[in-house]
């Protein structure tokens, strides 16, 4: 059995699952101290099911805690960055395009050194251990121990980053080091940005993960626990303490993976209705379609593979106004349970309209008996139109596709969406994100440039697939379950010699669960 927990900005959701069966679920407000909220959710689940915790195989947690720390510029550790690539890269130093407030919070402590590789694996310049030792001494003198290391084309060859880390460790034994090659993809600034963000979050991550561990211990849970990553796969707790940056945007991914699981569908549109927004995404082969563009997090450019979702200002707490008719984007959000009319408040929300129209019986329906039926219908028409447009925008062809509706605000979707082959509102729709965390798999990725003069395209693809598979297995996947879920090939333009960039992602089931 597994417990999946999703710690969102508003709610902490938890589910207990036995294989593919949902045994129990709970939703409670997220607390200031994240661990307390988790303890509370665990307690509720365990008490409700009389669970023997020794039967648990794993606990999976999805959290926005680290994203929020960057967005709020809080609890970040001052960090140094060493980049290897001289004499290249000088005119764009590390953190060059960061917002000033964030850069100042962690300090612009960066150092450029020789090293780095070309796209085809040649060295840009020789690695100089003395140069690195000198830099490490300077970092030590500043009293910094959070350190990010990047090197040009380290996705092709990471050896210079690794050698640098060894030397830094000799000079600063308690250094907390993040190598860009372990996190990101091709794109030096974006990968380095991710490495620096990771380094400045490490201290918080260690604390948070040990808080999670404590919460589990308090419940006498000895099963291993995992944290979900932005691509919907899992990392074990110790790995998460080392790579907090990989949790960014895991929320929408979990909710879409949960929707896929609950509906049994691999290709579908997912409409996730929350309190304030509705996120529409597309499932392809059971995974969210990823956005192609660079993604800003807290104002910093990254190249994480984020799910491609369209967010519209429509949720269960959206404000409804007459003359002119207006639905959202303002929302009462988490105050729905005090401010909405059916809950005794004085704000007319979309939830009130759905109750007034007689679709649902929530709170006190007599409080909305004065809502005009014609007006309620007009609001419903507007909601339908908003959802139809959003779904159509995310669809990839005119062919009808199944639409899966999940999230706490799902009651808003009462009508069939245009272009939907069927509408599915699975059981436990409100906690799809926690389910997505509970059922998550383990993955591995590779992103490299291959020179097709040296090998055929087929050989290059094979090699990339093999590398991704090996990474999935070393991350904890059961070898026999690993599948290749994504292959992307981009030839290098304006370059003779037929080089091509190949990105492959592999995932498999968690070993021992």
């Amino acid at each position, binding site marked *: 059995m597994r417990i999946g927990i999703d710690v969102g900005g508003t709610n902490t959701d938890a589910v207990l699952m036995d294989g593919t069966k949902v045994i129990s679920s709970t939703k409670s407000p997220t607390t200031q101290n994240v661990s307390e909220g988790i303890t509370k959710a665990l307690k509720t689940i365990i008490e409700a099911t009389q669970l023997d915790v020794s039967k648990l195989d794993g606990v999976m947690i999805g959290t926005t805690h680290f994203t929020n720390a960057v967005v709020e510029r809080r609890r970040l550790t001052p960090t140094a960055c060493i980049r290897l690539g001289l004499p290249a890269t000088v005119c764009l130093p590390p953190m060059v395009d960061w917002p000033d407030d964030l850069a100042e919070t962690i300090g612009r402590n960066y150092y450029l050194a020789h090293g780095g590789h*070309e796209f085809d694996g040649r060295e840009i310049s020789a690695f100089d251990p003395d140069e690195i030792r000198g830099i490490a001494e300077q970092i030590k003198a500043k009293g910094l121990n959070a350190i990010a290391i990047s090197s040009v*084309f380290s996705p092709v060859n990471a050896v210079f980053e690794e050698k640098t880390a060894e030397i830094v460790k000799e000079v600063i034994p308690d250094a907390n080091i993040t190598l860009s090659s372990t996190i990101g993809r091709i*794109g030096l600034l974006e990968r380095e940005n991710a490495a620096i963000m990771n380094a400045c979050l490490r201290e918080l991550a260690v604390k948070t993960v040990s808080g999670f561990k404590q919460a589990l211990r308090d419940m006498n849970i000895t099963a291993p626990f995992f944290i979900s990553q932005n691509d919907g796969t899992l990392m074990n707790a110790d790995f998460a303490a080392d790579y907090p940056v990989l949790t960014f945007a895991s929320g929408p991914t979990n909710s879409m993976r949960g929707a896929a699981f609950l509906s049994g569908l691999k290709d579908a549109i997912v409409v996730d209705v929350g309190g304030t927004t509705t996120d529409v995404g597309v499932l392809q082969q059971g995974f969210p379609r990823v956005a192609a563009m660079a993604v800003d997090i807290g104002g910093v450019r990254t190249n994480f593979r984020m799910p491609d979702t369209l967010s519209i200002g429509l949720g269960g707490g959206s404000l409804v106004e007459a003359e002119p008719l207006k639905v959202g984007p303002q929302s009462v959000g988490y105050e729905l349970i005090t401010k909405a009319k059916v809950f005794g408040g004085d704000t007319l929300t979309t939830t009130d309209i759905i109750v007034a129209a007689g679709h649902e019986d929530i709170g006190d329906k007599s409080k909305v008996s004065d809502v005009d039926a014609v007006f309620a219908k007009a609001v419903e028409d507007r909601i339908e139109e908003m959802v139809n447009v959003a779904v159509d925008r995310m669809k990839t*062809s*005119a062919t009808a596709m199944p639409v899966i509706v999940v999230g706490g605000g799902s009651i808003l979707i009462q009508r069939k969406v245009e272009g939907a082959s069927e509408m599915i509102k699975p059981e436990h729709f409100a906690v799809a994100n926690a389910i997505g965390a509970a059922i998550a798999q383990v993955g591995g990725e590779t992103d490299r440039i291959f020179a097709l003069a040296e090998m055929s395209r087929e050989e290059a693809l094979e090699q990339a697939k093999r590398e991704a598979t090996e990474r999935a297995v070393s991350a904890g996947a059961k070898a026999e379950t690993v599948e290749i879920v994504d292959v992307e090939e981009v030839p*290098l333009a304006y*370059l003779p010699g037929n080089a091509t960039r190949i990105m492959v992602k592999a995932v498999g089931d968690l070993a021992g669960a």
Partner: protein
Amino acid sequence: MRLLSEEAIEDIALGAAVLGTGGGGDPYIGKVMAREAVRTYGPVELYTLDELDDDDLIVPAAGMGAPVVLVEKLPAGDDMIRAFEALGKYMGKTPKATMSIEAGGLNSIMPMYVAARLRLPMIDADGMGRAFPEIQMTLFTAHGITATPFAMSDERGNTILMETINNKWTETFARTLVVHMGAMSMIALYSATVKEIKKAGIPGTISLAEKIGQSIRQARLEEESPVAALCKSVGAFLLFKGKLTDVNRRVKGGWNLGEAKLEGFDEYGGASHTLHFQNENLAFSKAGEYLVTAPDLITVLDVDTAEPITTEHLRYGMRVAVIGLPCHPAWREPKALELVHPRVFGYDIDYVPVEERYG
């Protein structure tokens, strides 16, 4: 003369991506490079051709190589200056200004680095009014200006100077050499007097890029349609709105070739069109019939934000607007057209200006 603000550089980068017609690299790196150079060395002074003497020497500067490499092996800065100064030294003359050979993509911005660091004027003009994949594909070539003497430098400090019999040979040799330089180099070429550029270049293209960028930014702020605002500001035609339903790529001799299929929506619902690209977007067709081709500009934009999408970033499922912009009239003269005619790119059709079908 006017000084380019950081905001102007942002606008130019965005507009240049539109003029890049899907190629020319993502101007993000160039934009940050120019901004940092301005912060370190002082503002870029943008001059019109009339503000300089006819005999003044202009040396254009550019980057050459694979855009995918540039996002990893960022420029040194010194490499750019080295190529620029090597050319002046070889010619025994002092350049009075620099300019862009290609207003589309990254190369619209690269000369700003040289201008800021060497405190030289940058000219508001270029040699294409868009992006093209090869060195000889400029209006300079059509007017007999030679790409050589040509200087190319890498970050290590290597500099190669070249004299060739024509601009196509410059392209051939340089393309081979750039691989040895790690697929990215900085170049200086097409040196010419102000008088020659007045005849052969396209004036005002940096300002044009800025105007495009501005129109998109303004529309986004005012929550109006940025695509419509862009079309209106420069007289572009909306060709299609659709979803990318299939992207087919192959690589051939350094070309990123392919087609993208689009299924229409909104007023284009039910229709399907095909975009043909070879590094840049070169043709747009419906059921085998070519509707728009190079040298007119074909740009793919995100339908909501008007963010230009390069051919490398085209992905299944994107929702895009495709716009067509008439190329500069000089491209339609016989000597210029033969450099960039649809047949040069393998489309065996006559060139029909975009406004004749959509105007």
